[in-house]
């Protein structure tokens, strides 16, 4: 199944989006692994989370087909 990761803030160096093909039932932790393998993000990814439009997701959250998630680096708003 196709999963899209939207990139913001310090992740913009990797583009606006990255696209991955993952097996049905894959979890956020699996997405983290393939994202790091593809982009070689390094330590920044260890302190970042994945989120949809409603919440920050746990590593065990199961990805939905055609999911569109954002990767959330440490935040600095305000």
């Amino acid at each position, binding site marked *: 199944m196709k999963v899209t990761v939207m990139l913001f803030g310090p992740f913009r160096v990797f583009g606006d989006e990255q696209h991955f093909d993952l097996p049905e039932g894959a979890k956020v932790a699996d997405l983290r692994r393939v994202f790091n393998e593809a982009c070689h993000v390094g330590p920044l990814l260890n302190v*970042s989370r994945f989120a949809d*439009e409603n919440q*920050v997701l746990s590593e065990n959250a199961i990805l939905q087909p055609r999911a569109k998630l*954002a990767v*959330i*680096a440490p*935040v*600095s*708003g305000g």
Partner: protein
Amino acid sequence: MANNAFVDVWDISVRPLDPGHARAFVSKPQNGAVVSFIGQVRAVDQGRSVEAITFDAFAPLCITIFRAICAEASERYGRDLSVYVVHATGRLEVGGNAVIIAVGAPHREEAFSACRYIIDEIKDRAPVWKLEHFTDGEMTWVAGKEVRTRCLPR
């Protein structure tokens, strides 16, 4: 809370943040106090001279989190609060308004407390990132705070 809260994320190249808009939203006959907080771009950060900051945000989640924070503030400080929260995205020069929070309440104590609560929670939870542009030409993403998993609701 929904009818008493206005939350949004604005691209400042389209629409600058407007303190007058904030005040107008929270100024109501039943409110004896209006407290506002405006976060601005400052000229010096950790000894380095700053020219501007570019703000980036995941706007849909920002809005969801702003709504949750406003609801939490209402739960803590009074269901009769009026709350306005708008955060900017895009490039802001020194002195530019990055975030505006305004709270209207019957009395000052809950207005001050709610305003403080909202900006503190935004700084911890809202998916916003700052790219600092220094006067020497360098640019750096500000090292931020790691967000918690499932930060909604608190």
